[in-house]
């Protein structure tokens, strides 16, 4: 706890500049539904990348490569915004 900042050291407004704090918080633990991505169906429009609130859509050279389940919180937004005709993401129940 010793490295926590005092209120006087915080930036103006509730912002976080230290992205390490974001990486430390593995929001994947929140997930009850898991996105399952089909590489064959995916047309790499990257709409899901734009909308994903956790930056969990992994992209390399303009192509989607997968979903980072350490941070994916299972909100299902990617599945909802993936073009209907493409339907490259399915949400399935997390089971042990």
């Amino acid at each position, binding site marked *: 706890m010793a490295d926590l900042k005092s*209120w006087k050291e*915080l930036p103006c*407004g*509730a*912002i*976080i500049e230290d992205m390490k704090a974001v990486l430390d918080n593995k929001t994947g633990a929140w997930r009850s539904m898991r996105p399952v991505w089909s590489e064959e169906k995916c047309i790499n429009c990257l709409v899901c990348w734009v909308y994903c609130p956790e930056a969990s859509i992994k992209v390399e050279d303009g192509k989607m490569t997968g979903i980072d389940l350490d941070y994916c919180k299972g909100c299902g937004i990617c599945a909802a915004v993936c073009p209907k005709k493409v339907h490259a993401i399915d949400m399935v129940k997390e089971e042990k």
Partner: protein
Amino acid sequence: MILAKTGNEAMAYAMKQINPDVVAAYPITPSTEIVQIFSNYVHDGLVDTEFVAVESEHSAMAACIGSAASGCRTMTATASQGLALMHEMLFIAGGLRLPIVVPIASRSLSSPLNIHADHSDSLASRDSGWMQFFCETVEEGYDSLIMAVKMAEKCSLPAIVSIDGFILSHCMERIEALDEQKVRDWLGPYKPNWNLLDLDRPILVGPATLQDYYYEFKRSQIEGMRTALPKVQEVMADFEKTFGRGYGVLEEYRCEDAEAVALLMGSASGDMRQAVDRLREQGGKVGMVKLRVFRPLPHELLRKTLTRFKTVAVLDRADSVNSFVGPLYNEVAASLYGAENQPELLSYVFGLGGKEFSPDDAARILEGALAGRKDETVTYVGVR
């Protein structure tokens, strides 16, 4: 330039001169015209503003937050239920320290439904971390809105500028409009502290902070409001220097040797001014203290000013339904607690839902205050 403008027209005109980057709004009586007139300015190309027509006030404030977080000078306008619907979002703008500026045509809250003036809307938003300014006249509203932009940006705090619904929003008064270029030059460009779209400085806006940081962020927000008053005063002084019109945090009217004064906010100050004149003619030692800045509350100034008088009648155009006194009274009483030479404080609630408040009503309050009369804990002026 001398113009005849209603309060709504003047607020829209001020917005045109301010030329904000983004306005996101949804109409509501009695502030509808502000947005309507402003959207004409957008249509006619007189402003560079991106106008976002949204589906509710909640969305309006959400869009404003997104815009301001992206480094844009941002405004909207609303009133009453609209401000109430924004309530959740108001706190977010406050916590993010986004200098969004909102003129409101203050109006009562339902139920029962009523579209007329009182201060229930703004005072119910008291704790959301917004600066709040109250105006007596249309011109004061116009000036205050322009000043509020600079104050908000200087303090990194959002701001509400209240003109009383219908009484000011729909009544035409004479205003001396300022030169548009001069207003824009005086405001200068907006330089945000941070910008969500700044790729060179990636930040996370509005994170979840738990027991580790929430309190610390709140404490720093409180400090922002606590230290805002001198900055507000600096902007007022700068405005006066540039445009020749001066405003204080509060205004004393004929208070020099007064024994009893009335303290109030908003358009009813005009009635009180007349009542003071009338009683002064008869030799009554009375005066008025008009409070213009409710947040940041100028508690030290209130204490310094009000301890000079024997009796202070505090007039609330709202009631916090706390079984005790009005919200302004509470704050004034807290400011005076422990002071030497505390005046006697009288609590009056008046004008709810636009109930007529005349110079006669105002004079009766002053007479009562002069006599030191305190019939009840709180007097509900003009209720049947």
